[in-house]
């Protein structure tokens, strides 16, 4: 097995410019095949989607055609923009193999049967180009079996590219190569997967289940066994195995519902057949088998079937979540508070949880000790690199920490002691870690990992994958810092502003830091300001709690000062003498969206959810959101001419709190400009944002203020009429009318006439007037309170 470093800077630069993959063929249009095809289309590739010709079909490519039609209805959406489906062409395996000749990459995603896969490879070999890469998405068949009988030339271009479902949303891509693979092939695929498809590429050894499923299936199966041993309900098990231990709230049983219960026996069967006889999975593989096969037989295959371990009962018109009894298969209303006390204790660390004296803690401890021992025993079999293993679990299974990071956080010595007293054999690699004290370390501000021979070596990471955490670790000290945000030197003359308030909620402290950044950049000759953070969500808006607190005290002047401070801050960002670039990802809502709107440029992760959602909490965007959007939709050519054009589009966006569900969609809605950039890989967003900022910094001059022509009272009448119709039709509540009427006043320019001109300051004044009025409305405060306590909008 050759060892190739995955990091981008290690890749010879000439490979970056050739061997690009643009034309793709996906063979098999099932859930995974269609999902991968859709994601390749999201990445801008030209895609052929193949499937078989059904018996007596008149439309011979109907299977693939229907798969493409289903994409636009999928939930969650597989397409980042509906028009992406136009890049995918339905074809069939009988008439269209000749079309393979210009494909750069051909991916096989058919049923997990070796004979069928072999016959596909031999059928297509004569049609694909000599430079094309061929790969399989198999999750269970070893590469060594797949290449049997293949010509050496094809085998040298054959990889396993193992995607996780759904391919758009799960960033893990396991890559399995062989000794005969040419380096060039490997580099082409990893650059493509990382930059174009946005995947975290993890190189795995050719062993059953690779990394993610090897460990993931063991964990699930070990958890089922423990649940039965402890006599727990599925709610109890999931309540302990989800958030309390840093896993998604689906835990184990709800996860199986999501994945599909029917695929579980086949996956376990294949693992059992292929794993060595001494693998601990064999001991627990049969646990719960009869429950699962009974569920499958009766159609309880999870969310796609009649339900699974959980189901949503909608019989009496209400949606009731029910849980299945592991004893008799009956469904009862799911218990909401099934967690043991130890789950809460877990907030202070996993060790506190595991040592708590209750049954839930004992349950978690038993599962985790075995899982940790198993993980340590897999090094170096599945991979020599613990960082790769941890990353696979984090990006493939959404674990907050990987097993080795979890072990470090608990303490290796304590774990080894506990394993010994529980009669668990301590794997060699874990003993090695015990000698060193930990799996990870920091040397000269760089993170190191323990390798299989017992050395701590630096984790190599390309400049393109730099995070805010890297910058902070290397720099050590911030230029300026307060409770909610900090300014850092990001090298090359760039100032970086990081938010770190709770949920990155905007407050006066953040405004203070943003203003300071502008001041420092202008007076000390910095080239530009980068607004970025490592959080899942860039910024979901203003600190509502603070606003509500002020309103409840009747501290109107301080609330109005906060509004004005935000307006001044954002105007300062817009008109600073240096450019400002924001690195967007995850949720960018309300005030967070308004920061984007005032930036000179945006580099957005493709999975950015952007919108002005203020009406949901009874207010309107008042930090220049209305002002910028009115200008934006016109300058970006999203609307035609006429006094109502811009007003109507912005009214619809803000009035309906429309959220773009991808960066591509955000361009349609005007939250992103045509010139703003989209990056598919979350880890590349910061580096790309910085390069964009450096480009803008050359020869920069601040933008010219926009001059507005708005329709005034006539336009407001039209919007009011539309609003009244919505109310009569039952689509708007009384307070919606109040809030959106205020929005209409701002967006139509108040009492102006459309032949006149309004300035940015005029619109800002209208925004302030509207929000001050709304903030004094009890129903708005009810909305805020509801959002803070329930996490969803109140329809009052």
């Amino acid at each position, binding site marked *: 097995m050759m060892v190739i470093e995955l990091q981008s800077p290690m890749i010879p630069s000439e490979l970056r410019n050739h061997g690009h993959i643009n034309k793709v063929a996906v063979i098999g249009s099932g859930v995974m095949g269609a999902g991968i095809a859709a994601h390749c289309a999201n990445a801008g590739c030209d895609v052929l989607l193949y499937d078989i010709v059904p018996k007596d079909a008149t439309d011979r490519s109907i299977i693939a055609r229907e798969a493409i039609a289903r994409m636009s209805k999928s939930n969650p959406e597989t397409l980042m923009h509906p028009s992406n489906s136009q890049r995918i062409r339905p074809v069939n395996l009988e008439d269209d193999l000749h079309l393979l000749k210009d494909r750069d990459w051909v991916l096989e995603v058919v049923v997990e049967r070796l004979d069928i896969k072999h016959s596909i490879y031999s059928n297509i070999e004569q049609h694909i180009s000599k430079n094309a890469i061929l790969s399989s998405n198999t999750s269970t068949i070893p590469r060594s079996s797949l290449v049997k009988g293949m010509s050496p030339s094809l085998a040298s271009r054959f990889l396993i590219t193992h995607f996780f479902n759904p391919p758009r949303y799960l960033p893990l891509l396991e890559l399995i190569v062989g000794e005969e693979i040419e380096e060039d092939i490997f580099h082409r695929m990893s650059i493509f997967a990382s930059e174009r498809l946005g995947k975290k590429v993890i190189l795995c050894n050719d062993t059953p289940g690779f990394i993610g499923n090897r460990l993931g299936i063991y964990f699930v199966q070990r958890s089922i066994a423990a649940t039965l041993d402890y006599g727990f309900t599925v709610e109890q098990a999931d309540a302990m195995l989800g958030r309390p231990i840093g896993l998604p709230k689906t835990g184990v049983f709800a996860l199986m519902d999501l994945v599909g219960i029917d695929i579980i026996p086949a996956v376990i069967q294949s693992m059992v057949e292929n794993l060595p006889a001494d693998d601990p999975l064999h001991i627990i593989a049969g646990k719960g088998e009869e429950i699962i096969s009974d569920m499958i037989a009766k159609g309880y295959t999870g969310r796609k079937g009649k339900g699974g371990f959980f189901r949503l009962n909608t019989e009496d018109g209400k949606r009731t979540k029910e849980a299945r009894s592991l004893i008799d298969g009956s469904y009862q209303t799911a218990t909401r508070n099934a967690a043991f006390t130890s789950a809460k204790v877990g907030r202070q660390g996993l060790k506190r949880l595991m040592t708590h004296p209750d049954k839930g803690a004992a349950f978690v401890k038993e599962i985790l000790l075995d899982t940790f021992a198993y993980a340590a025993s897999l090094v170096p079999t599945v991979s020599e690199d613990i960082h790769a293993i941890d990353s696979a679990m984090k990006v493939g299974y959404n674990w907050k920490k990987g097993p080795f990071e979890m072990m470090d956080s608990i303490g290796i010595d304590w774990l080894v002691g506990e394993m010994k007293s529980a009669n668990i054999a301590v794997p060699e690699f874990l003993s090695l870690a015990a000698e060193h004290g930990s799996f990870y370390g920091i040397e000269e501000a760089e993170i190191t990992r323990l390798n299989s021979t017992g050395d701590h070596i630096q984790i190599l990471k390309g400049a393109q994958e730099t995070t805010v955490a890297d910058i902070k670790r290397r720099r050590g000290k911030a230029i300026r810092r307060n409770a909610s945000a900090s300014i850092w030197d990001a090298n090359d003359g760039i100032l970086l502003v990081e938010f770190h308030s709770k949920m990155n909620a905007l407050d006066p402290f953040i405004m203070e830091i943003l203003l300071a950044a502008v001041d420092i950049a202008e007076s000390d000759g910095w080239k530009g300001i980068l607004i970025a953070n490592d959080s899942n969500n860039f910024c979901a808006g203003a600190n509502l709690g603070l606003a509500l607190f002020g309103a409840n005290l009747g501290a109107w002047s301080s609330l109005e000062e906060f509004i004005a401070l935000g307006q001044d801050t954002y105007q300062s960002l817009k008109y600073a003498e240096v450019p400002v670039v924001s690195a967007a990802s995850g949720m960018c809502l309300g005030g967070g969206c308004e920061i984007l709107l005032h930036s000179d440029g945006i580099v957005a992760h493709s999975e950015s959810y952007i919108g002005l959602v203020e009406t949901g909490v009874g207010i309107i965007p008042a930090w220049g959101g209305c002002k910028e959007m009115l200008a934006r939709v016109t300058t970006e050519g999203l609307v*035609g001419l*006429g*006094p109502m054009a811009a007003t109507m589009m912005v009214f619809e966006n803000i009035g309906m709190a429309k959220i773009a569900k991808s960066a591509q969609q955000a361009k349609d809605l005007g939250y992103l400009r045509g010139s703003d950039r989209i990056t598919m890989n979350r880890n590349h967003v910061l580096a790309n944002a910085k390069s964009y900022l450096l480009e803008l910094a050359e020869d920069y001059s601040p933008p010219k203020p926009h001059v507005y022509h708005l329709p005034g009272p006539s336009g407001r009448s*039209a919007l009011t*009429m539309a609003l009244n119709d919505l109310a009569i039709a039952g689509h708007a509540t009384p307070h919606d009318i109040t809030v959106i009427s205020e929005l209409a006043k701002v967006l139509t320019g108040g009492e102006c006439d*459309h032949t006149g001109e309004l300035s940015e300051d005029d619109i800002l004044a209208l925004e302030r007037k509207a929000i001050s009025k709304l903030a004094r409305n009890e129903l708005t405060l009810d909305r805020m309170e509801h959002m803070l306590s329930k996490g969803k909008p109140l329809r009052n």
Partner: protein
Amino acid sequence: MPAVICGYFRSPFTPAKKGDLANSRPDDIAAEVVKGLIEKTGIDPNLIEDLILGCAFPEAEQGFNLGRMLSFLTELPHTVAGVTVNRFCGSSMQAIHDAAGRIAMGSGDAFIAGGVESMTRIPMSGFNPMPNPKLAAEMPEAYTNMGLTAENLATIYEIKRESQEKFAIESHLRAANADFTDVIIPITTADGIVSTDGCIRPTSNASSLARLGPVFKADGSVTAGTSSPLTDGAAFVLICSEKFAIAQGLKILASIESTAVSGCSPEIMGIGPVAASQKALARAGVSLKDIDVIELNEAFSAQSLAVIEELGLDTSKVNIDGGALALGHPLGASGARIVGRAATILTRNKADIALATMCIGGGQGIATVLRRVE
């Protein structure tokens, strides 16, 4: 001097946004129909006085005095004039009335009259709705949403949802059984030739309609199934003086006996056909029992049923080939369609007198009485 109808043709009517004409400009659709009308009637284009075009939202692709642009698009001689008239849904019936009136005054012998609407490409109420704020505040019903006027009539006339649905199903059935091929001019689009209507759903039934929710009023009775669909399409007739038609050897479908318009309260605009029809019948010197064929534009089931009840119409004579609920209602084109259809049925059934009437947003009605010419 009596005016006569010497030919009627239309484009297929297809659903807005998702139909086959959604990607076609309204002026292009209208031009093909006018060219077809000229070719099929055999009229000498040099003798046409004016092209009178009805359009409810004459802006954007329907702007620039579309009537005149159409005369260029159809390669009529430059001596043929062109005008656009707007009476919302009554626009193309108004175009016919204008032609008939001018013939009566001796201001011309041959007119192309009709209308077009792309409800895909020009939104109802236009791209820049800017109502008079004072009027909107003091008399909001002046700008009332059409669906709510149907709800108002359903309430006043106590028209149950089931009756509205029954009426809609009947309209679809009749339209599905009718043959429109002789009047449809196929339209060439970027995606191919479109020659069939797209709105008719012969499978509409009580249970499929019952599943739909009210669209305009939360606790109302008017649904998408009992409202005419947003539609793209064009319809035109050739109107000539009787003397001219005979001299030119044109085929005469019917003569225009009388016309009328009338206003009513805007919040019950759907009742507009009642007064307009009564006036037109009186002017023609006929009574309802003399009428064999009635074309009543079906803006909404509730509105049609209110008119039927108020006038006491015999439903077996109303919309014999189905109505707008099934065929669709491209606002500017519907008036010419129902006049043309009434004339066609008169000829086909060898019947005597027909009434074509429709309601108009803002509170109006318009009506035409036709007589078959032997």
